[in-house]
């Protein structure tokens, strides 16, 4: 071994928030040309570690060393000066600005006197977009893009900084296999050119594919690291959860009458008519690439977007209904972007969790009890194992995965007849993912209908009975899950492009 200090080293970092210990005595080091994956259950402290490394949080004790010299970052700008760049778990983009402006934010090319160099800007933008294979007008407003495209922009921005040290916090949670492959490919290239990469993810297949080393966090502690051949799904799960996951019970599927009927549904952005039905007890997946219109379809069914065509739930015609009527008719939508669509982050867990179902507790004139909603919130927190199990803290104090549990819990508690889910297990750890999958299955066993969109092929294949594949808002076909493969889905999803 040489005596050169590692590129970055964190030494016995401890970080607490109020009473909660997010990290305790975590140490690890990373060398140039190495890809380290950090895995762990929700709330294990992964994002906190990423934030400490990139200067967003300062640790209570312990320190960060870059190339041998000890650093105390006061903000992320200072970390950036050391070549450390981070893609946050929740997107941080400027919606009222263009793709180009977002991509170059904080590192705009300059001429003299602080003037921007526009031709150079455009050149850099093009090359950044190329890195993630995103074909998009650099002058489009970011606020007009779908979630997946926005995620790709965040990735492109970080990749293009050619940082010495790149930290990615769940970058692939909403990417489909195609975009994920592009990303992983880029990461390997960067690694070869000597960058160090830290990747946080719950998708263990990706870890197997690219990680040189895996660091496992549990309750804020570094409980082990795996290298080379040890990096295997089961080993990782065991290390993370501390036990094996119970195998899924085999199911008997019997479908009843259609509960959700959608006919000739058209929306503003994708004027392609979509018709589908989901029967009682059935689980249907919607698959497609980033921007294929999955979220848009779900939102349109739910009544969030202006639409034409027919939607009904249990014979109840919702064609002209708004969200409120949809909810009362037994429809629920678990949205994709939890920070903007799912939660009011500064409000308490209790307020957030009880919101959609609060009307059930209201008296004749809409009056509420002093403790209205508290019981519901307690129940959700307990059933979904939210950590820490408190309902009085603001939702922003929960880790990403735990926030997701609140979003799911608050809707499932309403016991809806038809559940629409958009990326249901985004950012959720393997254990909780199984738990959520189990609940979704239970729903269908009790005769409910489930329609979900997911970018994760494993989830699409294992959780659904049928798969509807979308491409550019058009239904490309329907596949039976038991008889299809990932390749077949992808072929359909990219169908539009291949024939071009």
């Amino acid at each position, binding site marked *: 071994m040489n005596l050169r200090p590692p590129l970055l080293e964190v030494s016995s970092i401890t970080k607490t928030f109020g009473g909660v210990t997010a990290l305790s005595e975590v140490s690890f080091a990373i060398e140039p040309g190495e890809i380290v994956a950090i895995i762990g259950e929700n709330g294990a402290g992964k994002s906190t570690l990423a934030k400490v490394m990139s200067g*967003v949080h300062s640790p209570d004790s312990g320190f960060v060393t870059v190339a041998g010299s000890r650093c105390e970052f006061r903000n992320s700008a200072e970390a950036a000066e050391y070549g450390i760049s981070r893609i946050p778990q929740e997107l941080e983009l400027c919606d009222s600005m263009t793709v180009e402006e977002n991509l170059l934010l904080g590192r705009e090319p300059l001429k003299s006197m602080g003037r921007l160099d526009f031709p150079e800007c455009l050149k850099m933008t093009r090359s950044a977009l190329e890195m993630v294979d995103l074909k998009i007008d650099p002058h489009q407003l970011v606020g007009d893009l779908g979630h997946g495209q926005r995620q790709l922009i965040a990735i492109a921005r970080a990749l293009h900084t050619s940082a010495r040290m790149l930290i990615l916090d769940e970058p692939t949670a909403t990417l489909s296999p195609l975009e994920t492959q592009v990303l992983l490919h880029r990461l390997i290239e960067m690694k070869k050119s000597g960058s160090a990469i830290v990747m946080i993810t719950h998708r263990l297949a990706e870890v197997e594919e690219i990680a040189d080393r895996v660091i496992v966090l549990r309750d804020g502690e570094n409980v082990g690291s795996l290298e080379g051949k040890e990096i295997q799904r089961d080993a990782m799960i065991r290390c993370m959860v501390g036990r094996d996951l119970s195998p899924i019970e085999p199911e008997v599927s019997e479908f009843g009458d259609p509960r959700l009927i959608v006919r000739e549904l058209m929306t503003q952005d994708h004027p392609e008519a979509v018709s589908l039905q989901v029967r009682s007890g059935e689980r249907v997946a919607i698959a497609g690439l980033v921007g294929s219109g999955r979220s848009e379809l779900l939102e349109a069914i739910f009544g*969030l977007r202006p639409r034409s065509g027919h939607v009904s739930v249990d014979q109840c015609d919702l064609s002209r209904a*708004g*969200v*409120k009527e*949809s*909810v*009362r008719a037994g429809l629920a*939508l678990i*949205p994709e972007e939890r920070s*903007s*669509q*799912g*939660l*009011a*982050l*500064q*409000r308490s867990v209790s*307020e957030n969790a009880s*919101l*959609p179902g*609060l*009307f059930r507790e*209201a008296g004749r*004139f*809409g*009056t*509420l*009890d*002093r403790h*209205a*909603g508290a019981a519901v919130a307690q129940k959700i927190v307990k059933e979904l194992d939210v950590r820490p199990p408190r309902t009085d803290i603001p939702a922003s104090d929960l880790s990403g995965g735990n926030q997701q549990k609140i979003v799911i819990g*608050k809707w499932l508690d309403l016991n809806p007849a038809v559940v629409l889910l958009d990326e249901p297990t985004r950012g959720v750890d393997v254990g909780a993912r199984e738990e959520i999958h189990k609940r979704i299955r239970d729903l269908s066993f009790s005769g409910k209908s489930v329609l979900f969109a997911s970018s994760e092929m494993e989830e699409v294949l294992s959780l659904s009975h049928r798969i509807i594949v979308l491409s550019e808002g058009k239904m490309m076909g329907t596949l039976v899950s038991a008889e299809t493969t990932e390749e077949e889905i992808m072929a359909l999803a990219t169908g539009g492009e291949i024939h071009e």
Partner: protein
Amino acid sequence: MNKIKGIFAVLLAVMIITAFISPAFLTSYNIENLLRRSALFGILGIGVSFVIMTGGIDLSLGSLVCLVGCLTPWLIIDVGIPAPWVLSGLLLLSLGLGLLHGVLVTKLRLQPFLVTLCGLFIYRGVTRGILSDQTVGFGTSGTVLKSLGNGRIPVTDTFGLPIPLIILVLVALGAGFLLRRTLWGRHLIAIGSNETAARHCGIEVDRVKMGAYAICALLTGIAGLLIVLDTGTAQPSNFGNFYELYAIAAAVLGGCSLRGGEGTVIGVLIGATLVQVLRNAIVLIDGIPEASEFAVIGAVIMIAVITDEVMRRRSGKNKLA
């Protein structure tokens, strides 16, 4: 509660200092006056805080006070319509205008600041136009009616509860109940905290918001009535000028964030009282030049806000990001 400790401390401090310097401060006549004035501005503050909690703002408030305040004596005395009709008509009008603000903000998705800024111009302009800029008032008549604004319920020989205070208490209790103990109130706060999320939860965002604007305008109308019943006369060009700023200041001092989703009724009352106590103190204490009145008010508000912030930081609950 934590949010308003600082303001409350400053209010207490101002009261103690004034009482110490001027013996007149604690006379029952003065306390009665203070209670009446704070009540009037408290009603305005509570009104606007509903709108602020949704993340909106209402700038039209001062002009609406002008509209209602000037039309009341005009319709009753000059036109000769019976008082009950006038009062209920004008309150309905206020409610309607509030609803209109709500419709423009929600259905046409215009910025609340712009909509109510237009209201600020239009209501004052219309009032001035109708009255051709002439002062109106009750003259020596209408004493029964006027007791709504300046009447009192005697408690001791020298002290009586001003009627506006009683109205304020009712309004405050109602507002508190509405905000904390009804579905509507919870939805209002949810909208202010994250409108998209609220919409995703099936909350009828537009309806609730319209309600908030309507309540704000209605309370403004009530305050406008009480104020003109108290003063007895009103000038279209300056009646209610800047009241929107006093009301918003009271609401914000009382812990409402202009980004929405936060605020307590009790805080707004403390905020409204602080401004009135200050103005009273400036007259009572010799040696503060009246011309500098505004400077003193501004400075004390600033001190209150900073105290508040420092206290909150001390309590360590303050976050960085």
